[in-house]
């Protein structure tokens, strides 16, 4: 199954990984949706042929086997390639492998490698190189994050999923698995191949700052905390990039990021702060775009809390939220009200009947539950400006039905400290948070959050939601392979959770980015990864 990964906000978003590539390309059906690529709208010319991308967070490492955050993955993709990749239609196609075969018993994977590919250091890409990479990953002493993708952990026992790797000839690699593991091929989209010479030369510490791959750009420099620059790989085996170089620059302050786009210091910014879209658009040479994202915005309700244990209360609270206002206020309209427990871009999404904004209904439900005068709750969340704004909104909305909310923004580290406690120590009432399973899998979007055994400190079921039926459905889902059946199972699960309302379902925002009109070919994937392999600056 898919293992979902969360996106929290800035500060702790390094836990977000871009497993399994770019997610789906399903268009979200919001008005503002404009697709990923802005072709044909190119206006003006760029003063140079150097692409500058300004981003909010920082690149933490360039060791492609040990990455944790989306931005670092995006950046490393400038230099690195995988054996296989997702194409635009989310089909797995070869990248460094020209083709592959899977044996009948699903245990043997044979890859035929592309010939004539060279690493940036001039060494040849071949089967030995692939094996060397896997040897590095699977070596426990190297303590690399990618390893967990190929290891099965059961209690204290760890078993490698890959039994052996053979290289019958220079351009063939054969993986022998210890047991069938259908996501294996998907996982390979996240295993960039490093030059074995570089592995030898730099070692684990050195690889953080010295990426040597086969990709379209050659690493030039990385000034930690400031920028990374890579130049066009003139010897690239595939379509060469349209720009001479790409620089990914860290600009944490939203206003400054917008200003840089305005002055032309940056050609592309992500995320584009939604508050400044109107100002940015007035200059005329800037286009603001958005792609669908996999992020679900919600507020966890602690279903163990006396007041919140009543489903009527939780539903009442859901009725008290004006989701359109939420999307407008928080994302300048770049998003949509929540229509299920996960984003529409996730597979097996099933639309649910919306909790209409209806204060009367909310109040009467609350009265039925025995709280005509409301009660008091605390609302936790991260302390960034944007999150605080969202929390303020929730507070206002709930106060309309008499629920007094104390907003408590905290540092991400503090929040996680307070969240990951066993039920008896839990002080949580409500948590303003978000979740982004970057895999296609509905299981990833639900298991960690709603499965009864996934309560903290084990995992992220911070609602302490416990519905045996949902548990059963999720178990069924993971053991089934039939899409039809799965559609049905996950629809039932979504419906059950939606009605139980362990969350305040808020909305699904989009990845908003902006660029100079003379730039084309750069887009943001649903998981937030920036794709700039095909960038072109109009000259």
């Amino acid at each position: 199954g898919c293992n979902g990964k969360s996106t929290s906000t800035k500060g702790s978003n390094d836990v977000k990984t871009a497993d399994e590539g770019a997610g789906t390309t399903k268009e979200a059906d919001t008005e503002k949706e404009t697709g990923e690529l802005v072709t044909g709208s190119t206006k003006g010319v760029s003063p140079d042929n150097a692409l500058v991308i300004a981003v909010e967070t920082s690149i933490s490492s360039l060791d492609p086997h040990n990455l944790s955050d989306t931005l670092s993955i995006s950046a490393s993709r400038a230099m690195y390639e995988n054996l296989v990749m997702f194409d635009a239609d989310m089909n797995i196609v070869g990248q460094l492998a020209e083709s592959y075969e899977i044996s009948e018993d699903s245990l043997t994977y044979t890859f035929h490698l592309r010939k004539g590919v060279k690493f940036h250091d001039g060494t040849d890409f071949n089967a030995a190189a692939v094996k060397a990479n896997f040897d590095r990953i699977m070596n426990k002493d190297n303590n690399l994050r990618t390893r967990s993708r190929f290891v099965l952990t059961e209690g204290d026992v760890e078993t490698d999923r890959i039994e052996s790797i053979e290289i019958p000839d220079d351009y063939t690699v054969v993986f022998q698995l210890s047991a069938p593991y259908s996501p294996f091929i998907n996982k390979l989209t996240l295993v960039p191949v490093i030059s074995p010479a570089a592995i030898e030369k730099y070692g684990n510490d050195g690889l953080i700052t010295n990426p040597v791959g086969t990709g379209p750009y050659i690493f030039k420099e990385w000034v930690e905390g400031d920028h990374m620059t890579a130049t066009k790989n003139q010897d690239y085996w595939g379509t060469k990039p349209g720009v001479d170089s790409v620089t990914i620059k860290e600009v944490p302050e939203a206003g400054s990021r917008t200003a840089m786009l305005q002055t032309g210091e940056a050609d592309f910014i992500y995320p584009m702060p939604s508050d400044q879209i109107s100002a940015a658009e007035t200059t005329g040479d800037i286009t603001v775009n958005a792609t669908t994202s996999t992020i679900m915005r919600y507020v966890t309700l602690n279903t163990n809390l006396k007041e919140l244990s009543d489903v009527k209360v939780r539903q009442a609270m859901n009725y008290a939220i004006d989701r359109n206002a939420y999307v407008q206020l928080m994302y300048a309209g770049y998003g949509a009200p929540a229509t299920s427990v996960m984003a529409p871009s996730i597979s097996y999404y099933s639309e649910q009947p919306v909790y209409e904004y209806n204060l009367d209904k909310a109040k009467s439900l609350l009265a039925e539950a025995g709280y005509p005068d409301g009660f008091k709750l605390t609302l936790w969340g991260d302390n960034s400006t944007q999150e605080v704004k969202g929390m303020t909104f929730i507070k206002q909305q709930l106060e309309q039905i008499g629920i007094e909310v104390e907003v408590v923004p905290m540092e991400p580290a503090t929040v996680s400290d307070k969240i990951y406690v066993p039920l008896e120590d839990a002080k949580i009432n409500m948590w303003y948070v978000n979740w982004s399973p970057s895999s296609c899998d509905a299981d990833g979007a639900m298991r960690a959050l709603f499965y009864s055994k996934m309560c903290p400190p084990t995992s992220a079921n911070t609602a302490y939601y416990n519905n045996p039926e949902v548990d059963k459905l999720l178990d069924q889902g993971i053991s089934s392979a039939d899409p039809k059946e799965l559609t049905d199972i996950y629809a039932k699960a979504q419906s059950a959770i939606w009605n139980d309302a362990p969350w305040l379902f808020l909305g699904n925002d989009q990845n908003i980015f902006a660029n100079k009109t003379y730039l084309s070919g750069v887009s943001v994937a649903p998981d937030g990864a920036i794709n700039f392999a095909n960038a072109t600056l109009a000259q």
Partner: protein
Amino acid sequence: MSDSKKIKPNTSFGEDDILPKPKSKMKEFIKKFKKRKTAVASLIFILLLAVAAMLAPFIVPYDPAAADYNNLLKAPSAGHWWGTDEFGRDIFSRLLMGARLSLSVALSAVGIGALIGIVLGLLAGFYNGIIEAVVMRGSDILFSFPDILLAIAIVAVIGPGVINVVIAVAVFTVPSFARIMRSATLSVKEALYVEVARSVGCKNGRILWVHIFPGTIQSMIVNFTMRIGTAILAAASLSFLGFGANVTEPDWGAMLSQGRNYLNTAPHIVLFPGILIFLTVLAFNLLGDGLRDTLDPKMY
């Protein structure tokens, strides 16, 4: 000495004596203070602000927390004198209400910090030796910790909230007061009248309280008023970093930092808090200067 015969010195201090008429302590202070026009104006401004803040719940035109999603980011108009913010809340009302929090956080934080710092500095300056070494090394350590970090740590340890910001700001106010107080004490301690007091038979407590402390009050007042400004700004900086006092109740610093994204779309939402902070800090500084001059017995 009633038994002794009065001496009639060969001096006359009659009606033609040129000394001014006797005055009461307070009256004289007020009279001297009144001459300092800028200080008086500042005081009036601060008092008006304080009164407005106290009466804010009764006089604000709008509920400062009430969102109006039909009136987001509206420029100043007759309906909303200083416009509305990103939630459509009335900025004027929020600023008035915000004065409560901002002023009371700043005043109480600096007040607490000053109190502790002054006592420590006074003791350190008066009793040199162990006390001095401990206080001075302690303030060295506090000084070498970045202010912001200290604040973050305090807020992280005890959670966000008004009290915690007050504590945070107070903690980094202490060493500055302790130092200034110590050096002021050291210099006043050298004053002849302190020696006189000892020769008269005053105990240390009286010397400290009656003779030394009032001599340091001028520099304390200036530091105090200057620190008020710093505290208001520190609260704003903390908001910027996400460690503000209270995110939902209006607070000038938070308004400024949360509104910064609208600098080019709706400048009024940061302009007015900015101006108000500026005027308040200015007023406190001018008031401090005025008080210092008024308390200076040599100035008249």
